[in-house]
């Protein structure tokens, strides 16, 4: 018995070819780029942790002169300029008495040497970027302009306090929360290279 194959309409054949090509190219790309940094962000990696930050903020190490960041202590800060000028940064140190609020207080005290810090809010515990953090709002007076800021602190499993902060001239709390949330979500830490 001879089996007669049903002829496939050229229209369906073309559609099937297009579908296969598109799915194959897209599937390959999705797989190839599955761990990529999101568009508009850059990845920082060093001192036993990594996180993403807005790419317009050029991040640099050692805000405190002469101090090189290490696994247990350091800070990074980046800024962008223009109408929507933004400052973002991260400070980390070994957890000490007082925990996250103590580190936040220390940052505010250090910044107060240069700027007037106003409207410091109470710490609010919340989940941000999938991490349990304490969030504190504040304002910085720069040339008589009040710039709103937010900071969020988290204790890593290996016993480091990470405080991330973000200030923006014109973007408001939603944007600050959005960025902090994204930065916190991307924060990954590694075990210490040697026992403390």
């Amino acid at each position, binding site marked *: 018995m001879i089996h007669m194959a049903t002829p496939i309409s050229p229209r369906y054949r073309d559609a099937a*070819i297009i579908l296969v090509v598109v799915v194959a190219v897209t599937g390959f790309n999705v797989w190839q780029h599955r761990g990529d940094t999101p*568009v508009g962000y850059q990845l920082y990696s060093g001192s036993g942790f990594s996180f993403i930050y807005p790419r317009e903020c050029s991040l640099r190490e050692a805000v405190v002169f002469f101090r090189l960041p290490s696994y247990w202590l350091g800070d990074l800060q980046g800024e962008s300029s223009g109408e*929507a000028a933004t400052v973002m940064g991260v400070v980390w140190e070994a957890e000490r008495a007082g925990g996250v609020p103590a580190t936040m207080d220390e940052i505010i005290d250090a910044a107060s040497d240069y700027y007037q810090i106003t409207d410091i809010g109470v710490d609010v515990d919340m989940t941000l970027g999938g991490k349990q953090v304490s969030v504190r709002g504040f304002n910085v007076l720069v040339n008589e302009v009040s710039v709103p800021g937010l900071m969020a602190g988290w204790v890593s499993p290996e016993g480091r306090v990470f405080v991330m902060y973000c200030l923006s001239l014109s973007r408001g709390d939603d944007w600050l929360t959005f960025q902090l949330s994204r930065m916190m979500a991307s924060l990954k830490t590694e075990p210490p290279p040697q026992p403390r």
Partner: protein
Amino acid sequence: MRSMASGVQETVKTVTGASRLEFIDFARGIVMAIMAWDHVSGFWNQFHHGGEGILGRAPPFVDTTWFLLRFVSHYCAPIFIFLAGTVLAISVKRRLEKGESQRDVTLHLVKRGLVLLFFVAAIEAPAFTNPWTYFGVIACIGVCLIIFSLARRLPTKVILALSLVIILNHSFLDLSFIPTRPNWGWYLRVILHEPSFDRWPYVGLYPIIPWVAVMGLGWSLGNYLSGKSTEKINGLKRPFALAGVASITAFIVVRWLNGYGNLVARMGNTLVDWLYVSKYPPDLAFLLWTLGGMCLMLALGIHIQGREWFHGGLTGMITSFGRNPLFFYLVHLWLYRAQLPDFYPRAYAPPFYLGLPETLLFWAVGLVVLWRLCLWYEKLKRQYPKPILQYI
């Protein structure tokens, strides 16, 4: 009012000819009117702004109302560019059928693209107080026309496949091999795939790479529609409606998964979180939502285009916008801006801000003025069918 309606009906009968494609004018007219809202609000409202998704940035809106008043305008660019591709395919086919040579058609498209670039520098960019180098939606369409002057020779299935590949994969594109320090490198990146306002005057919002693919999808639809009978076109109502629903469902899935297809991640579960998608450049979620909406508009247009009242009243006004998209675009900018050009670009600010009700009133009155101007312009084109007017 009655004489106005009959005037429109008369215009439609004599200008459009191929009345079966009025559903395209209808869909395009809707987005022209919405676009006018976006621009009048941008010119005169303190809380209206755009910039969603520029390189992952997400500027805040003061509340959900202002967000939605901006969000509704997301339909404009994708539908404008998609249907530009559709109409282009139909028009190219008609020209060739009329006996124009391939060379003449190519030259016509190149000239039309260059004319658009001139309009950007002379009319569009100053209206937005941008430098003449601003790469906006009209510049993007102009360059796409020049690309299609050659790409049109490819088989439709190849254009369709390439367009889908670009739309689904452009977010993986890495242009970092182009240096940003010389300004030409920066500008090239802005034009190709990285919308930005960071380095004046090399600014732009509508990069070619994703948008040429949207035009390619429209081109494929135009080729599919060409030569179809009125009955077959009417039979497309259900497929368009289903495609629209499927596309919007896919949007919900992409936003829910919150990974691939989202250049701006969903940061929570509020309405704003779900709808806050990247327009600059357009991510997959953005295109699924807007092109899904377009399919529903096309289905609605097919459903009502045969009705007696279609050519009068509000629908008549909308289709008159859709028949004259470029004329509408160029005129509405200055009508709603209502100010002289700035001699110091980037210093744009209205002399005072309007509230929401006043802006809505301004928008509505402006639409009536634009309607009459579109009818006048159609009449003018009929009187002078050959000169420069054919490019507008």
